[in-house]
């Protein structure tokens, strides 16, 4: 074995690092290729379950002059092997160092992966700060939903892509080639492309309380605001006809077909629901063709129809029926990532159940009707109970319900209502089912106010309050039919700090990385006290980022445009205070503004 093979062999799970999976792309390494590393700042199992990776990987590799390889965070055993032997972190395809790349493209899916980004750079011998890197170093860029507030990484990244990456990534690589790969010139020209943010061309000043005083370009010709990019025609957009098939069991191991983008429900806490607007569907014909191609090319035994809210697809019933018919003989199942609480969902479930029984999860989000109205979650108790009744009579015994704790205006009454829902469902089960096998999982996560949502000004709940709410539910849900899953509020606290953070947090990340902090998304490594010490040593107060903000305050992400007007977000925030609902905009536009301005007529 070669030195790298030896450490792959010695690692806990060699298939995380070996590459060579079916549908992996290899190209002869000659000087002409633009080399791009798609970097996912978490382990292989998580990264390979991310649809964006498969799209971008194939999109780039379908171009003759581009070679895209993959790199993931090495697990701690591999990190140690690399360090002990003085080896660089490597790409899966050709086992190259990231220093040999022209670009490293990070995907930002959750804030707690930021230290992993720094660790990947460190293990590749690449300086953390953009200004410390030289022309021989790769350009480091990032995209993904967290990029809608790029500031906590603004001194680390050379460039951010805001919005959907299919078109813009190719434009950027073409520009790089056209400018003879001159990185300085490239950054300046790239900064003028809509959807590209190059932080070094922007200057930020703060007032005495650390609030942002001004934020503006520092160079002539650089736009003051950066609008997101979207793909207008989902039927024409590139979709990979193949996907890499991991050898190991990853989180989502199946063929994935994206059936639409965007969501019209308008839940006020939900960042995805705002930033991915407007809704754009693929036709059933396109979806069926993509599913067929992927099944042929991967050999998967399951097709997942993905989107933010799959059952809202306008022709979901016929689509599922036709897919089931087509794939029944080869025993390929259809899976739906999430379900709505209504009778229609139950109809669809009956179809899917014919081939395979999938687990059922529903997002209820809040326990009381009052609080569900505050967050604009259009679900009533009646919807919930009739749906449960139908699925129990259809033979299901295992259900999981999602809730959030710490939502704006939440009181103990709202938390108690979660318990009431649990008991009522248990009673329904006893009434309609003679089986005695109910497992009702109640899962609570912690609400984190996110940029570009109507709740972007809200405060993060206190750690004490969150703890006591969890403790209450721990006690209240002690019944053999219930399983209570909850989330450590401390990691949500840190997520909240970075979600609405500013540029001053770059130094916090760098200090944390230097002190060996990484894998914050993993309970076994998350060290809250260590983080607090890092903040303290830099004299930065994390609470500053969790506080409630005024509508007038300049927010760190105000220069990034999601297409949804700030005025609309304010209106929604005001409506939430009175528990006023806003209808699903499939049933009539509610004026969010995404169809105005640079995105054009999209709804």
């Amino acid at each position, binding site marked *: 074995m070669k030195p790298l*093979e*030896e450490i*792959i*062999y*010695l690692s806990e799970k060699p298939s995380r690092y070996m590459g*060579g999976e079916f549908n992996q792309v290899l190209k002869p390494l000659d000087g002409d290729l633009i080399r791009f590393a798609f970097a996912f700042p978490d382990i292989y199992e998580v990264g390979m379950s991310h649809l964006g990776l498969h799209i971008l990987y194939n999109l780039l590799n379908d171009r003759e002059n581009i070679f895209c390889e993959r790199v993931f965070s090495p697990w701690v055993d591999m990190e140690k092997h690399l360090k002990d032997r003085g080896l660089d972190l490597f790409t899966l395809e050709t086992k190259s160092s990231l220093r040999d790349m022209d670009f490293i493209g990070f995907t930002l899916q959750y804030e707690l992966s930021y230290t992993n980004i720094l660790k990947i750079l460190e293990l590749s011998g690449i300086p953390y700060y953009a200004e410390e890197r030289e022309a021989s170093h790769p350009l480091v860029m990032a995209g993904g939903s967290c990029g809608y507030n790029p500031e906590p990484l603004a001194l680390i990244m050379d460039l951010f892509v805001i919005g959907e990456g299919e078109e813009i990534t190719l434009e950027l690589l073409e520009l790089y080639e056209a400018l003879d790969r001159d990185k300085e010139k490239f950054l300046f020209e790239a900064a003028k492309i809509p959807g590209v943010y190059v932080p070094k061309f922007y200057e930020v000043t703060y007032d005495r309380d650390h609030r942002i005083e001004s934020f503006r370009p520092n160079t002539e010709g650089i736009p003051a605001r950066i609008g997101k990019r979207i793909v207008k025609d989902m039927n024409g957009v590139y979709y990979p006809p193949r996907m890499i098939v991991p*050898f190991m069991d990853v989180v989502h191991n199946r063929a994935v077909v994206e059936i639409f983008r965007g969501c019209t429900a308008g839940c006020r806490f939900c960042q995805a629901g705002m930033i991915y607007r407007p809704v754009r569907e693929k036709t059933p014909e396109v979806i069926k063709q993509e599913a067929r191609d992927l099944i042929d090319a991967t*050999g998967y035994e399951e097709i997942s129809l993905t989107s933010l809210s799959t059952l809202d697809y306008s022709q979901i019933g016929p689509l599922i029926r036709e897919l089931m018919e087509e794939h029944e003989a080869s025993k390929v199942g259809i899976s739906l990532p999430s379900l709505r609480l209504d009778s229609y969902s139950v109809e669809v479930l009956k179809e899917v159940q014919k081939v395979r029984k999938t687990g059922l999860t529903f997002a209820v989000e809040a326990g009381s009707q009052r609080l569900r109205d505050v967050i604009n979650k259009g679900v009533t108790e009646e919807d919930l109970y009739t749906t449960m009744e139908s699925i129990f009579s259809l033979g299901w015994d295992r259900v999981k319900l999602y809730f959030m704790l710490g939502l704006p205006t939440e009181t103990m009454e709202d938390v108690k209502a979660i318990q009431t829902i649990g008991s009522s469902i248990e009673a329904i089960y006893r009434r309609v089912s003679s089986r005695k096998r109910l497992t009702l999982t109640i899962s609570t996560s912690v609400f984190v106010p996110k940029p570009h949502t109507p709740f972007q000004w809200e405060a993060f709940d206190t750690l004490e309050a969150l703890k006591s709410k969890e403790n209450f539910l721990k006690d209240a849900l002690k019944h053999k039919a219930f399983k209570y899953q909850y989330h450590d509020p401390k990691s949500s606290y840190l997520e909240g700090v970075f979600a609405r953070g500013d540029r001053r947090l770059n130094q916090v990340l760098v200090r944390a990385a230097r002190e060996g902090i990484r894998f914050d998304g993993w309970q076994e490594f998350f060290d809250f006290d260590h983080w607090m010490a890092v903040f303290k040593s830099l004299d930065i107060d994390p609470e500053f980022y969790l506080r409630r903000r005024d509508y007038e305050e300049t927010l760190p992400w105000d220069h990034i445009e999601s297409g949804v007007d700030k005025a609309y977000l304010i209106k929604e925030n005001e409506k939430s205070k009175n528990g006023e609902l806003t209808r699903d905009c499939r049933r009539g536009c509610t004026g969010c503004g995404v169809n105005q301005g640079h995105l054009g007529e999209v709804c």
Partner: protein
Amino acid sequence: MPFLQLLAKKEGNLRFLSHLETHKMLERSLRRAGVPLAFSQGFNPHPNISFAAPLPVGTLSDYEVIHVELAVGIDPGELIARQRCCFPGDFVLLKGKLVEKSPSLMKEVVRSDYRVTLNLSCAAEEIEDRIREFLNQDSHLIRKRTKKGRINDLDIRPQVRTLTYDEKDHSIFMSLDTGSVSNLKPLVLMKELFDFPEEKLDVRRTMLYKSKDGELIELY
């Protein structure tokens, strides 16, 4: 229903796959190739695929024997001819044939040959001395933990049928008992003989045998 019997090689990085991963890889390759697999009944239908003597992680193989239950018969030669469409590059089908029903493959295997290439320097005499010393013993006991967690003494000397050093390519050839009656893994023997780090050894299975009328014959 007919069974497809395959003989395959496992090369390169595929050696790092666990048995379960290899199994899944083969299932998906066969699906991609459009081979009509037979499925079990029930909500989670799965195909019937079995390997003779599953390989440990890290081992290369010239000799993987596999049975696959089919819904209808196919032409194995045709599958072999177009295998590159559907199998990972380092998994190569060498031969295939249809057999009537599957005897339990695992039960049939009695012996395996391995070649262990040494990626470290060690004097030839030293290796040969050590081998001679081992072979000259009447018995060689090792401690082995049973499935139930008890510790037993096991005599591995009779399980080693051949053991030679080949100076030309700095490798050790061994023929070892394999199967449910008597089983010895190559790395267990290597550990008894030498204190070489595992990652410096390239282990390759070169043959599997079954016994027929008291004689050893190739498994496939």
